[in-house]
């Protein structure tokens, strides 16, 4: 299954590295990634694939729990939501 990860927060070194390292540890394969920085705030967006959708809940909780430590708001959800909302 494919999922989306967004993170918005105060820019500091290593945020992307820590998120992607954890994704790799959990076996998620990144398909698309983009990041923008506006003054001190960054916005990160990536789409990744997870072979076993049964592991998504644990992965979502695990990564969203990193929010506070990284000073960011991290949200994960299934890709189909973006497809439904933004494509006709």
């Amino acid at each position, binding site marked *: 299954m494919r999922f989306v990860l967004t993170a918005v927060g105060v820019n500091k070194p290593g945020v992307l590295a820590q998120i992607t390292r954890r994704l790799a540890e959990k076996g998620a394969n990144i398909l698309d990634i983009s990041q923008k920085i506006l003054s001190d705030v960054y*916005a990160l*967006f990536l789409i990744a694939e997870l072979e076993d959708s049964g592991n998504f809940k644990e992965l979502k909780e695990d990564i969203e729990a990193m929010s506070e430590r990284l000073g960011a708001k991290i949200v994960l*959800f299934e890709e*189909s939501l973006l497809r439904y909302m933004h494509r006709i």
Partner: protein
Amino acid sequence: MNFQLYEAIETVAMVELEKLDIRTVTLGVSLLDLLTDDFVEFKKRVADRVYTEASRLVKVAREVEDRYAIPIVNKRISITPISLVFKKNFDLLELAKAIDGAVKEAGVDFIGGFSVLAERGYREVDELVVKNLPLVFAETERVCGSIAAGSTKHGLNMKAVLDSARIMKQSAYLTRDRDSIGAAKFVVFSNAVEDNPFMAGAFLGMNQYDRMLSVGISGPGVVKTAIEVFGKDLKLNELAELIKRLAFKITRAGALIGREVANALGVPFGIVDLSLAPTPAVGDSVAEIIEAMGIERVGYPGTTAALAMLTDAVKKGGVMAVDSVGGLSGAFIPVSEDAGMIDAAIKGDLIVEKLEAMTAVCSVGLDMVVVPGNISDELLAGLIADELMIGVVNAKTTACRIIPAYGKKSGDFVRFGGLLGESVVMSVRGVEKGAGCDFVKRGGFVPAPITSFRN
């Protein structure tokens, strides 16, 4: 499929900042096959079925919620209108208590369907149900009910209107220690819809599946923010386009989640109700949308026009987004549940008569309007009749969920808590003079209206 960063951020911001949520997933459950003359057996069958279905709904809704970033605020059950499966030897209150216990244990927020379909008139058993409804609303927590009192096809049944006024008054009296909250669990309709997922008026009509899952979306905050950010200098037709696009996105999200829940439950997907449903939270208000559109204050001249445009744009965007639309679809204006409406009512900017005018162009009616407790049954029935005839004549659904707050007078304050909110008691002309209404006391029907010569 390529997505852009801003699209993902927009989705997350809708939920995190603008309070987008799925207001309700409502599972319709038929009781028709459970009929028996033995009340004890019937009660057990109904409570068992409701518990089984409600437990599955709660579990599945939580799982789906985990997969997406959008919260599902309420899980609800709607059942076959109870009067259709009721018999003279049955005990309505006992049945309601058994059902209330089952839904509480399962974790469902509300159950709707303690309802009577009386557009044409009462059947014998209907009177028994109607008589006992106030006790049901007073002594159960989550059971809601309704009366369908009129329709464009049949006209308006004035006895059902007067009975509805009495149900409101009695429910309010019986729950006088809780600001008359009992009356908030009852609604009277014209042109009642059979697939409405919203409370208090949800029931599963006879022309629906045995089980089906419908979804009610929310999202006033999303629309308001977009109008404030992108809509400042737009002409009205351009503003309508902006609202349509947002309604499309919100509806698609609702439809996706509704379908996922339906699939996981193995039941047909019913409908998406497109209504913009406010909550008492600031920023989640239909009144604030109207003000963002350029009306200085909700209730001032221009309000009805703005609401009409908003409702139409929401419907147009929503209909494009999903193949099965139903329920009440439009914009809700429940006074006590909308921070902007409450504020306008407190300051006297929004009055009952203006609300009535607004309901001619949106869904649903005089909703969560708190009126003085000493209003006479007949005058309250007159207010209901006014509202319902707007629906009968215009071939649309209208409804009244009015709380005649016992012991309270105009300007007093009541607090219900949760999604039901709080409100000032609004004044109704004639109450202070102790007025009645001989028109409703005549009884009989207001005949069905002619549907040509529409001027």
